[in-house]
């Protein structure tokens, strides 16, 4: 385990995650002819939340105060298992993709419990929808990842990235393209983006993620929000660096290579954010019971990806 790499990746995660959320918000506003908040506004929001007093519901138990820490820490830990700018990831040995998915589920589990604890109808609604949609998204997510894992013969994310990197032509392999598409749909669902959930609204009967956070305030809210943006960054990184590891610095790379790798990573990240912005702006939010259709389409894509590994080998 490489301690400096771990600390650097931790800092990168903490600092980059809010910025990505901010950039997406800003670009979305621009595309809709609004000025929108500055990209770094999210940092100010988080600092404000941290400084504020907390109001805690009288009905809550210790689970309510425990949940934000689990959400925040599990998201950070998954970030250390995913390769961001160099291979292997700092905590590659501690767990591969199955641990990442498991830890994200751990965070979600406590997030949903936090939603139920204040005895409000909104929180229950959010919890119920979040757990339902994530359950439906799970097979598509796993199958898309399995397609790459089977080719790499490992569930270790760094191994998977290396295997994809070793033969660049594999990027245009139909299996790979289909799995990438499936994973993109799952990304939209898991990060609460528009065809599935609307991150910009509150107090709308269709909200999912925000409904669970409704009773949170002060530093609890800050950790919840920050955790959500770290989770978004982790999933985006997973998509970029495992399915599309171009420019990612390999083991034993020098400073220059690491610099190039960081630049490539940022460029890919911005491109993916742009894609998310375009999808969010050109689509309307789906009715809740239409979302499973979208997710089963992702599952079908992933199954096709798997079938095509079978056909093209």
């Amino acid at each position: 385990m490489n301690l400096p790499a771990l600390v650097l990746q931790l800092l990168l995660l903490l600092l980059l995650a809010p910025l990505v959320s901010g950039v997406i918000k800003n670009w979305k506003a621009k595309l809709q002819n609004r000025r929108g908040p500055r990209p770094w506004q999210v940092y100010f929001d988080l600092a404000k939340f941290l400084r504020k007093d907390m109001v805690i519901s009288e009905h809550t138990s210790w689970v309510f105060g425990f949940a934000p820490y689990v959400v925040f820490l599990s998201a950070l830990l998954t970030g250390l298992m995913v390769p961001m700018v160099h291979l292997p990831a700092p905590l590659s040995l501690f767990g591969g993709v199955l641990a990442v998915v498991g830890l994200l589920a751990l965070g979600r589990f406590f997030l949903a419990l936090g939603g139920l604890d204040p005895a409000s109808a909104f929180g229950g609604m959010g919890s119920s929808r979040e757990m339902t949609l994530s359950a439906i998204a799970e097979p598509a997510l796993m199958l898309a990842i399995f397609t790459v894992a089977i080719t790499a013969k490992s569930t270790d994310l760094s191994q998977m990235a290396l295997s994809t990197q070793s033969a660049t032509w594999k990027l245009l392999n139909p299996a790979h393209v289909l799995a990438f598409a499936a994973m993109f749909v799952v990304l939209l669902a898991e990060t609460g983006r528009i065809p599935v959930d609307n991150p910009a609204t509150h107090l709308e009967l269709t909200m999912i993620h925000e409904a669970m956070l409704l009773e949170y305030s002060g530093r609890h809210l800050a950790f919840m929000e920050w955790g959500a943006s770290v989770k978004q960054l982790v999933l985006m990184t997973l998509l970029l660096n495992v399915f599309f590891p171009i420019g990612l610095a390999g083991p034993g790379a020098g400073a220059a290579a690491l610099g190039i790798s960081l630049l490539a990573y940022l460029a890919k990240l911005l491109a993916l954010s742009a894609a998310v912005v375009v999808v969010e702006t050109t689509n309307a939010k789906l009715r809740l019971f239409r979302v499973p259709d979208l997710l089963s389409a992702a599952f079908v894509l992933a199954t096709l990806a798997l079938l095509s590994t079978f056909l093209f080998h």
Partner: protein
Amino acid sequence: MNMNDFSATLLTCALGAYVAGIVGALLFQRAEKLANGVGFGLAAAGGVCGIFACASSLATGAATASQSFALFPSLIPYVRFGLRADALGCFFGMVVSLLGVALSIYSLGYVRGYYGHKNAGVLGAFFNLLLLATTLVFLADNAFFFLIAWELMALSAYCLVSFEHEHAETRNAGVLFFIMSHLGTGCLILGFLLLFQASGSYGFEGFHALGDKMPAARRNVVFLLFLIGFGVKAGMVPLHIWLPAAHPVAPSNVSALMSGVLIKTGIYGLARVCFDFLGTPPNWWGVTVLTLGTISAVLGVLYALMEHDLKRLLAYHSIENIGIILMGLGAALMFLHSGHPVLASLALIAGLYHTLNHAVFKALLFLGAGAVLHATHTRNMEDLGGLAKRMRWTTLCFLVGAVAISALPPLNGFVSEWLTYQSLLQGFGTTTSLIRLMFPLSGAMLALTGALAAACFVKAFGVTFLGQPRGDHARQAREVPFPMLLGQGILVAACVFLGLFPTVFLKLFDPLTRQLTGQQLSQQLTMADGLVLSGGPAQGGTVSTPGIALMLLCLLPVPLTLWALFARRAGTRIGPTWDCGQRGLTPQMQYTATGFSKPLRMIFKALFRPRREVQREYDFSPYFTTTLRFESHVEEVFQTRIYRPLRWLVLRASRRLRALQAGSLQAYLIYIFVTLLALLLFAL
């Protein structure tokens, strides 16, 4: 006695303690406190002896095949009351003993609830009998003895299920359990008779690898008979219908034993028959078991989501977890067929480790449900809520169980599902035929199962323990007595240890895989001094649950620093939950268990066929309702589409046959005469 003397003595002590428990509990049944103490105290002592006996013979490697000794001499030909503590038997014996200890301690407190209106002595006696019979099932080395123990187990379980027989629901569940159980036993008897025909003895030793010498068709028939016979006991879909009926109505300590161990006798039987008796399997066996496992897992969790009876919900989860175990066993059979013993061992370890884990966390959850029942006298989640403030320790224990069963890191459910994923993914390379797509697809279904289980336990935990109490019983709930907490605490510790130190426990599987597949994997699965679990020789990936737990703690300074930097002066106020400006929230405004699972009910409506009835009465306009009645039902497809027509057929056939049984003696004499004649003709 050629087995490890120490273990054999301890094992005999364990069985003796159970027998003493039966006698003692019955003897003192007039003095219920004494009966409780003696009955369950001796059961706990027996469990402790059993753990040490089985674990020591597993750890020292003494548990190998053909190490058997006669319990007592037999006067009947073919029957030998012999115990053989081989690795497979010892492993399952360890599971039952472990649960025996925790459940007996818990029962010391739980049975107090029956004082005055039920006979605690009888409960204690049957509990001991069930432990005794289950231990004998795992250790019997003779088909006859096995079947006797098997029946003893089914009958004592029947008596325990019907313990609260004053409720009609309980009686019906008991009878259903009885019928299904005997259907299974019938298949087992046929299967053993076919094996006897091939080997000429009833000893398990003679059955070893017998399948290779049998004609293929007969071997397949034997496999199917055992699959049905053991599948009924395991609660495999579609033979599961007795399980969600019988497990919830039993006393909670018994439910825990039934869900934790009793259904595992089916898994034991399948493992024994498929890996020990029947030789190298054809491919379709593994495919069948894997498919049935996948279906059981998904359907089990989907039906669990529709439940709002806490114990029925847990019972459906047993079906789900049996499915996950069967996925491991099925994959192992497929790998044995394709000649990959190392992978087969990995899949087998995954399945059996999940067996142990499921026993621990399911028993824990049933004990939690029992504690809730003890404190509130209701199993209906829609009347519960807010128990987290009233029953702190029970809440914590149930939460650990819920995290473990949802396969979340770093607890034990995650580890065994991780091993299952690894064996499924590595299985893709074992064959080039299209059948290999089954592996990742069942992996995806396993992912769906895990996520749905998490949803279900958010519901079960959230609705039961969080929020506001929905009824008076929940409002007045008090924490349960200490023995009940201690029983749960033991299982919590087991969940944590099995989750954080899997590499320690993997060593116990070495004699087991040596016996069944000739491999020994614990070295290959262990990395970095046992801190990291590896996916096996083919480099499938690594995971470290102690690492994950440790890193979660190491990252804790990040939010704490932020707190210290920014929020040092921030205060905390207690206020009401936001109520949209209305005056006060009532507990009825919370999300209910039924409401929570509504989206899934709608998404899977092809399966559930939900229907609802709403009746409302109002004075002026529909917006001002005076009374509202709401009913919602889901259909249990297997019940209505398979078992109901089947029952109808059976009843109709019996009505026809009744004509034969006219009650006249002359007619019966003619029947006997004709049968005799026919048999004589047949013999000629």
